[in-house]
C-alpha cells in the first residue's frame, strides 16, 4: 500500500497529464511592440526547431513517428488549429508546466531530419521558450488572420 501511495504521488506531481497553462494575453494585445511574440519572430523558429520533423503537413502518415494527423506546425494556421493541444503539451504558465513534448511517446527520441528515424535525443526548449510559447499562443489565437497565416 505504501508503494502505491508513493506511485500515485509521483504521478500527481510529475505533471504528466496535459494541462492548460492558463496563460492570458495582455489586453490590448501589444502587437506593435518590438518585443511582442509573433509567428515571424518566435513561433516559426520554435516550431521548426522542435516540432516539424514529425508535425508537418509535408510528411506522409508513415513518416510522422506517431504525430497525430492534422497536428501540423509548419504553418501558423496549422498551429492555431490545435493551439490548445500545443499549450497543454509543451507550454509553461501559471497553472502548469508541461514538458510532454517534444519527445513524449518516443522516450525522448526525435528524428534529426524531417520524417527520419528516431536517431537523436530530442532538443529541449528552455523554460523561457516554453513560457514564451504559451504567451505567444494566448495572443496569436486572439488576432485576426487572413488565411495566409499572417496576422492582420
Amino acid at each position, binding site marked *: 500500500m505504501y508503494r502505491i501511495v508513493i506511485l500515485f504521488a509521483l504521478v500527481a506531481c510529475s505533471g504528466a497529464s496535459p494541462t492548460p497553462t492558463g496563460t492570458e494575453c495582455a489586453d490590448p494585445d501589444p502587437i506593435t511592440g518590438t518585443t511582442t511574440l509573433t509567428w515571424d519572430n518566435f513561433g516559426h523558429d520554435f516550431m521548426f526547431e522542435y516540432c516539424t520533423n514529425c508535425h508537418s503537413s509535408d510528411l506522409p*502518415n*508513415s513518416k510522422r513517428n*506517431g*504525430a*497525430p*494527423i*492534422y*497536428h501540423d506546425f509548419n504553418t501558423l494556421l496549422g498551429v492555431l488549429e490545435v493551439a490548445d493541444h500545443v499549450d497543454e503539451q509543451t507550454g509553461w504558465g501559471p497553472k502548469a508546466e508541461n514538458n510532454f513534448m517534444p519527445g513524449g*511517446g518516443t522516450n525522448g527520441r526525435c528524428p534529426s531530419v524531417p520524417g527520419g528515424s528516431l536517431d537523436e535525443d530530442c532538443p529541449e526548449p528552455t523554460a523561457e521558450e516554453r513560457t514564451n510559447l504559451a504567451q505567444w499562443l494566448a495572443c496569436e489565437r486572439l488576432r485576426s488572420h487572413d488565411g495566409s497565416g499572417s496576422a492582420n
Partner: protein
Amino acid sequence: MRMASRIGVVVALGLIASAAHADHHGMAMMGEADEPTAFDASVDLVAASYNTLTEAGDYEGVLPAVGWRHGRYGVGASLGLYRIMLNGLGEHGIGDLMIHADAMVYSHEHITTGVMMMVSVPTGEEIYGLGMGHTMLMPSLYGAWSAGRVTVNASAGFSRAIAQMEAGHDHGVWPLVDPMNMSEIAWSAGCDVALGRGVHGTVRAAGGIPVALMGHERVIGAARAGWGSGRVDTALEVQAGLVGDPFTIRGLVETALHF
C-alpha cells in the same frame, strides 16, 4: 443449464463484450452444457487496420482470457498484448485489463435475460492507443430468444469513464485497439443460426452512442462462423466499421477450451 439457454447466454454475452470490448469474451464465459460449475480459457488473435481523423495504421493482438461460471453467475478477465503501428510509429504493449461479472436473471424455455458489469483497468498506454487512460465502468443488460436453430439477442448498457471531464470538450473515441466514448450507451444485436454438426453462423451489429459528453457515434457490423468439437470451440469473424472510425476492417480468430 438447457442448451438453448446456454447458447443464448453465450451469444448475448459475446455481443455485450463486442460492444464494450472488441468481442473477446463471448466464448470464454460458459462451460460445457449442463455443468453447474465450469472453467474456461480462450485465446483470441486479432488484426485490424484503422484510419481515423488523426490516426492511421494497423495493429495485431493476442488476447488470452479466463472465465469461471457457477450456475447463474460468472466472472472472467482478459488482457491483450498488442503490436500497433500508429502514424508511422511502431509500439508493443498490453491493453487495458478487462474484468467482468454477470448473472442470469431469468431463464425460460426460449428466453434468457441477465445483467453484466464490466470494468476496464487502465493498464494500456493511452498515448499509443492501447489504453483508455481511465477506469471504465460498463453495466449492461442482455437478453436472448431462442427457437429451434435460431437465437436472436440484444444488449444495452451504459459505459462511463471514472474521471472528471469537461462536457464541452470532444474526447473522441479511444483506445485505437478497442474504441469507445468516455460516456456512451453501448448496444448490440445479432442473430445466430445453428447449422448442424456443431457449426453455427452469426451476423451482428454493435455500437455506441455518446451521452453526457461530446463524442462520436460508431457502428460495426460483423459476420462470424464458429464450430465446436468436444471441449473446444473455434470461430472466425470479420468486422467492418460502418459508422464513425472504430476501424476499417478487423479479423478475429478465437479458440476456447472448456474444463
